[in-house]
């Protein structure tokens, strides 16, 4: 119930804010709006529960994902993706995956996205000529497929059978800490850990070779 109210409230605020800001400042406006709401909510965090925050973060995540896909300018897409990654990191926090949240921000948003930004700037990509896609039917087809997929997922998730309730309260002690994660990594998943390191070396070499200007 609160979730619904929260979502409606946020949509209203967003629409209001957007209607007053010109399109160019849309990303900044959205970010500002989100920050403003966050600050407000922090001050009044006892007033609203975890559901509200989850709903808000979810809303922002979905909106930013949509902007990634829809916006013609690749640079803007990158920035919205970063926003999305932040939201995911927040979700990780809610889910008692603290280490992962930090890793997400440092590695994913901090390194990989920076790489994207560098490449976009290197290639000096301008705005795509509209979202002219490979045929109008393909766009509609993709959207239809997406809707079908989403419906399928919803249906599957709804009918999971049992209904365990998630309580974001107490997890086990040390759940989600670096120690717990590291403990597993170096014992049970040792091999995968080592393999991942080899994978990274291969990727590094591959990237260097592929992006070289001339192969001598």
């Amino acid at each position, binding site marked *: 119930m609160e979730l619904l109210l929260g979502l409606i409230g946020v949509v209203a605020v967003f629409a209001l804010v957007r209607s007053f800001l010109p399109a160019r400042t849309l990303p900044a406006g959205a970010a500002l709006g989100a920050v403003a709401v966050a600050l407000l909510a922090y001050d009044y965090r006892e007033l609203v529960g975890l559901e509200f925050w989850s709903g808000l973060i979810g809303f922002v995540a979905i909106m930013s994902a949509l902007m990634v896909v829809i916006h013609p300018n690749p640079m803007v897409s990158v920035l919205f993706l970063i926003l999305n990654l932040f939201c995911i990191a927040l979700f990780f926090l809610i889910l008692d995956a603290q280490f992962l949240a930090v890793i997400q921000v440092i590695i994913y948003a901090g390194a990989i996205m920076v790489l994207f930004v560098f490449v976009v700037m290197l290639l000096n990509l301008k705005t795509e000529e509209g979202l002219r896609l*490979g045929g109008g039917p*393909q766009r509609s087809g*993709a959207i239809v*497929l997406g809707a*079908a*997929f989403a419906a*399928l997922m919803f*249906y*599957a998730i709804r009918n999971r059978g049992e209904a365990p309730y998630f309580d974001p309260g107490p997890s086990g002690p040390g759940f989600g800490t670096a120690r717990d994660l590291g403990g597993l990594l170096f014992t049970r998943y040792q091999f995968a850990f080592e393999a991942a390191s080899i994978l990274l070396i291969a990727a590094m070499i591959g990237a260097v070779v592929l992006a070289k200007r001339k192969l001598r």
Partner: protein
Amino acid sequence: MLRLLWLIPLLPFAGFLLNGLLGARYLSRRAVALVACAAVLASFAISVGAVLELHNLAPAPAETGAGAPVRFTQTLFEWMPMGTTAEGADLTVRWGYALDPLSAVMILAVTGIGFLIHVYSIGYMEHETQAGLARFFSYLNLFMGMMLTLVLGASLPVVFVGWEGVGLCSYLLIGFWYDRMYDEKTKMSCADAGRKAFLANRIGDIGFILGMLLLVTAAGTLDIQAILARAGTLGTSVCTAAALLLFFGACGKSAQIPLYVWLPDAMAGPTPVSALIHAATMVTAGVYVTCRMAPLYVQAPVAMLTVAVVGALTALFAAIIGTAQDDIKKVLAYSTVSQLGYMMLAAGVGAFSASIFHLMTHAFFKALLFLGAGSVIHALSGEQNIWRMGGLRRHLPLTHATFAVAVLAITGIPPFAGFFSKDAILAGVLALAGETGSPALLALWASGLLTAGLTAFYMTRLYLLVFAGAPRMPEGASHHLHESPPVMTRPLVVLAAGAAVAGFAGVPGFLGGGRIPDYLRDYLAPVLALQHIDSTGIGTPSEWSAMTIALLVSLAGIAAAWAVYGRRPLPAAAAAAAAEPRGFVRVVKEKFFVDETIDALVLAPYRWLCRASAAFDEKVVDGLVNAVAAATDLASQLLRLVQAGYVAGYAFAFFLGTIVVLFFVLR
């Protein structure tokens, strides 16, 4: 020597293999000829030795129709081991040869005359290439081997192997010059003529095979002597059916109505082939088998009557056609058909030994006639139309002499061979007519007489137009005009001697007042003991008058021919009638349009069926296959659009597939 019986058919086979495999390249021309002739000569020598030994095996058959037949059987191997029937009859077919007086006569005639013809061919085919020569002689040897297998075979399948083999060789030899056009009017090539012969023979073979099957079902065996021993117990209907079926096969081989049509066109082959195959040996195979199965026929009077009627009709019909033919070889071909009809007539009335007698004498003079014709054709560089010949007796003396002997023999002038043999047949017919008092048989005798007259007529016509009178040759033909080389003329002389004296082997009893024995009849009596014609049965005066009547008819035929064609200069009417025949003459000349009728009635629907089948095969069957291929093509064209190289399209497909799979997993 009897133990070497198996060599008699084998030596020509060896010659066939040698010449066939090596003759084209590795042997010289002389070697090829030597191999072929030596093989046949060796067979002849062994045959003579074997016959003599056979004669010494048994007491001299002095009485007619008495004593067990003298027979020597040699089994080589078990060919088709087929176990026994439920009644205990042994179905196993063995490959064996049997020599008895009947086959003795045959092998002597076949190998002897065959050898002479081989020698003659050396000269006749001298213009052939090395490869062609080798091919010719190997085919000739193959034929000899097959014919001897046929004659000596002790069981019906062995005979049938030879039967088919000679049919095959006749196809190979008739179509020897396979790329030559034979008849410009009907566009028939020599290969077509060979095919026609083979097919006509094959149609007859259906009868032979069915006869064999009927006999093995009824008698439980395919061994000839075993069948004949049981002939009395088989029942009339079975015997009649089997006899008629075998006779149908004989019609194909021995050119009786309705399967005679291949013989005139078989003249497309080289003349020695015509002499060997279509005068002396292959065409007599039908007569031989009929006489061999005589005990079977005797059990079936209906079949015998059919044989006699067909034989007489064929004789008359062919003789009529022969009077109007212009090609020297065609005349002789129809003459052969006619004489074969005589032989069948004799067999049909039960005078089997007379049939074999006529077979023997006919072999002599018909081969002589063909070889003489070959000599003429050779001298005239290929001319075969008798209206473009004439007066050749000055240029080809030896050929002329031997040809004259043969003409006298065939027309039945004593003391040459044909007189005795033809008279034996006519006497046999008359005797049966007297015995049974049947008017039909009397009619058969009359038709036989008429045929004799016509035979005399057309043979004399042939002789006069070719050898007598003024020359009518066109310019180009005369430059090669000289007598044939000795390698060709010496066989002619030998055959002429045979045609002259062979008749004395079968002098009928009444002529010599009982002092001169009928050698042939006595020799064959144990084998053909069921011949119930006793020519002394009707009494001597009727025999004398019958003989005189026959002689007079022959002389009348000769006189008539002389009247028309013997005058000089040749009456313009005769020449004009030949050049532009009208009315009945035209019908006769066009052989009563038999070939055209068969073509329209039988072959045209068959060809239509072939065309329809071909169209069906093309449109429907091929169409189906092509449609499958086209469908595959279409499918692949459509499928190829999937691989457009358009990556987003690929991703689309992935996504779609994932959704579908998930749908089925999660439901």
